[in-house]
């Protein structure tokens, strides 16, 4: 099972395991990782699972999903490495993925 690490805004890391095929959002909410809300349940419709992807991993994630950029416009602090965790599906290739969390979801 791929392992992924969430680094909180205030510092401190949480590493969780989730089966291949799980979204990064679900990996966080299923393990009660604070800082990922996922209000819409993974429909790319609320932008409350915003993460900053570690540059080392950016290329491996592929392009933004349809509609993802529209929703990213809603976040508090958009950066070049912003993604919505519900649009990232875990694969063995993503084992070790590291993402940073924003100050809060908005």
């Amino acid at each position, binding site marked *: 099972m791929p392992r992924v690490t969430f680094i909180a805004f205030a510092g401190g890391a949480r590493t969780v395991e989730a089966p291949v095929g799980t979204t990064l959002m679900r990996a966080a909410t299923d393990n009660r990782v604070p800082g990922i809300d996922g209000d819409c349940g993974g429909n790319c419709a609320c932008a409350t699972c915003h993460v900053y992807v570690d540059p080392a991993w950016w290329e491996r994630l592929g392009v933004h999903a349809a509609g993802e950029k529209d929703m990213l416009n*809603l976040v*508090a602090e958009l950066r070049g490495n912003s993604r919505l965790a519900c649009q990232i599906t875990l694969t063995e290739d993503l084992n070790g993925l590291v993402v940073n969390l924003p100050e809060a979801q908005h």
Partner: protein
Amino acid sequence: MLDSIEPADIHAAARARAAVLPLDDLNPADPQGFVDDTVGYVFERLRREDPVHRSHSPIPGIDTYWSVTRYKDIMQVDSSHSIYSSENGITLMDFPPDDEQKLRMFIAMDQPKHDEQRKAVNPIVAPANLNNWQNLIRERTVNVLESLPRNETFNWVDKVSIELTTYMLATLFDFPLQDRRLLTHWSDMATSNKLTNPDAPEPEVRMAELRKMLEYFTRLWNERINAPPSTDLVSMLAHGPATRNMGPAEYMGNLVLLIVGGNDTTRNSMTGGLLALHEHPQEMAKLRANPALVDSLVPEIIRWQTPLAYMRRSALVDTELGGKQIRKGDKLAMWYLSGNRDESAIPEPNRFIVDRERPRQHLSFGFGIHRCVGNRLAELQLKILWEELLVRFKKIDVVGEPTRIRSSFVRGFSHLPVRIPG
């Protein structure tokens, strides 16, 4: 005699009527169902028998519309903004093109203009800024609560809900505090509609009041544009590249959006939350025993109340929804109130549960690009209110029936009699 009819009788009659009427005759936008709080029976039947329903209203300007009543269909419409447009407005009422009453505001715009204007106001209600405000909100909440009468019946809507939300709005705008009730007045004017509520002011009176609002805010705009950029909303609009060239109609529209959005909504959640806890004493007991449950109480209140019952969209193309053919130009009501009671999406939706498993999964803020920009502020205000209520008052008694607003859009209250023992 009318005044001898008990609420229970009204509910029993409405339930029976919703069960036997021909489907074609069901019209959830009938404001009476909101005054009596019986529209839920109509939604129950529509979700079961005809979840995307062709509804007809006798009110001119509303006429024929689609009622979308299930959670997943609402989610689909709300997040498909290239199929379903907001440009014709967010309420079911149609106005002739160029009618002054048709307000220009970013909630009623499509991309790209919507995104540009929204981005200009986004920072003020973003998490970093809210942190700066927490103490001020708490301080003002405590002041309001400390001044409440004891051992006497008062109107919770006026003394708590309106007072707190208006205070907050005045703070957001850096609006003179002594004039803050003007904001409440303008908010009520903006949402008033003579066609759906005979007691509402005439359209000319309404527009005259809104023009006074524009005059007042134009004065504030001129002050702020000549001063260095500040963190209040008027300053942000006056200095923001996407908003500084707005015409008067658009400025008025966006003011109405922010005033109504920050006022009518949270106000009614503040009242609805107290009423819900009063009607579910075992949930109040849970909350008293564990005040940390405020974190899940707040989204549950917002789901339960659903202060905006629907948002309207207009189809940009011929399309299909829930097996129905939607024609280009058709209008739809996404009934958030119904979706928030949909048992296929929310477990035990007709129960108010303060420690719900996934309390944030509700439709009250909408989904997609028009999702409520002030959602975190609303949650913060409610959280602080409940934290302060719980530490301050051992008992808050609701001592009579609420009076509900005659509107199928703003789902709210004008009166709730409350008594706090001394």
